């Protein structure tokens, strides 16, 4: 464990060093990225405003859904987004062979090589949204709320992490899996809204199959004491972290299963 922490830190320093070589372009890119997300949320805001509320959720509650969602996404994407983009190329041109000649577990090594500092933009935007939403909703922030928020981030990180792994794993066998990436982002766009606005079948899928509801929909309710439990009872609030963990475990298992079946390309 200590070995992996040290190795992770060494890689992180290297990524920062690389990033700071192009400081201005990094900052400009992050500002543009944050604006992008801001505009995306502005459209959701306008829609919620038009309906006055969305299935009992007001704009500031939806803002919390959005902020919690992008923090969870950032945690997973920090480790796995670039890995998802590069694995297909590395498998196709044989560069992945090199990963297997290192005395390091495959997944941590791939993550470390691809750590991505870009998500500072998401986290900053989310922080601003939390301040605005909490003050407008009059939510008191104590230790319990902070703990719930942190748990929400962990759930989000696990679900998105699981999704990234499900998208990466088949690449070792199929070589090209771009279509799987699109599912991640399609469901992400849906999960910005209260899940209860969707038909029952979508609710079931987003709770129990690809559990995007666990990223922010249930955690935010636990945080602000809302009760919109879909077809489930209150217990879902407590089960949510287990669903997130189980989903990530499935992703890990599939990753290991597929790496073992990796067939190298010729020289």
């Amino acid at each position, binding site marked *: 464990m200590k070995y992996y922490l040290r190795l992770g830190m060494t890689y992180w320093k290297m990524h920062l060093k*690389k990033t700071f070589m192009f400081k201005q372009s990094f900052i400009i890119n992050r500002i543009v990225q944050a604006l992008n997300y801001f505009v995306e949320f502005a459209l959701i805001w306008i829609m919620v405003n038009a309906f006055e509320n969305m299935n009992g959720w007001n704009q500031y509650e939806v803002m919390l859904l959005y902020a919690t969602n992008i923090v969870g996404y950032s945690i997973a994407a920090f480790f796995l987004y670039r890995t998802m983009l590069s694995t297909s190329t590395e498998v196709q041109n*044989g560069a992945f062979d090199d990963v*297997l*000649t*290192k005395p390091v577990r495959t997944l941590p090594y791939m993550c470390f090589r691809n750590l991505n500092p870009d998500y500072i933009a998401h986290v900053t935007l989310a922080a601003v949204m939390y301040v605005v939403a909490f003050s407008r909703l009059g939510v008191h922030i104590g230790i319990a709320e902070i703990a719930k928020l942190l748990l929400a981030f962990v759930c989000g990180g696990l679900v998105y992490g699981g999704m990234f792994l499900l998208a990466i794993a088949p690449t070792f066998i199929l070589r090209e899996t771009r279509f799987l990436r699109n599912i991640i982002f399609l469901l992400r766009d849906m999960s910005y809204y209260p899940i209860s606005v969707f038909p029952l079948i979508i609710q079931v899928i987003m709770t129990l199959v690809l559990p995007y509801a666990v990223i922010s929909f249930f955690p935010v309710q636990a945080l602000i004491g809302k009760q919109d439990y879909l077809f489930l009872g209150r217990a879902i609030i407590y089960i949510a972290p287990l669903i997130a963990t189980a989903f990530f475990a499935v992703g890990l298992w599939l990753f290991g299963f597929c790496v073992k079946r990796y067939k190298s390309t*010729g020289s």
Partner: protein
Amino acid sequence: MPLISVKNVSKEYKQQTKGKDGDGKRISGKKLIKAVNGLSFDIEPGEFIGFIGENGAGKSTTIKMMSGILYPTSGTIHTMGIEPYKKRRENAMNIGVVFGQRSRLVWELPMSDTFELYKEIYRIPADRFRHNVALFTEILDMGEFANTPIRQLSLGQRMRVEIALSMLHDPPILFLDEPTIGLDVVAKKNIRDFFTERNGREGTTIILTSHDMKDLDTLASRVIMITKGEMLFDGTFDTLKERYNAESVAVFTFSDGREPESVSFDPKKRTLPEIIAEIGNQGEISNVEVKNADIEDIIREIYNG
């Protein structure tokens, strides 16, 4: 016990085939490709092996199985007592790998940053690390570009860094797949010197594939030659030259300007003065050029024959 032992190893791939048959009908199916077929050999500590074969002969596949990247379909491989594909991470500590044209370097930063990463990956003790970096920088003549970002280095400079990187953790075994491809004479010499030094001083066992036969002739003490995944020859270069008819060619030019004449001969059976005396009877010789069969000719002959 040998350092590396390859026993009756085969590797099969299923290859998807799509196309049209003679009647223009579409056909698709899976074809079984035998990349390696019942290969066996042992490698002792300190050997320098030249691993030869035409494209697609199964060299890379064999190296990938020995380095733990691929599982054999049948047969077993042991490197330093372990099956590399079963204990991939343990095996990785024992080997250094350079796969030709594929870079592992951090493109934007100088070589020292990639070295630092490898120090952590292989848990290299600080003093050993400093010693090796200093030594390799000197032998591979990397001092002048030590602080230049990798992306600004030439191919030859990058390859020198790659090779240093593969040896930083002092692995007892080094696998080199086409390390000198596309390099100029100076870079090649640096690299050859480095291999000689590692093999001679540290006793590093080196397995080298190359299309540059001069590389192999000057470096390797033993040749393993495969074709279509099967063993073709295993022995020293001298045995190879002896076994396969290594003929020299003498080209005679005459003073009277007539067509030059070539004579092939086996230096062990006939000497050059004998041939000169014989050809001299036909007219006054103005020049003789002798070309000894080099390893490239021999290999060409073996594969064509």
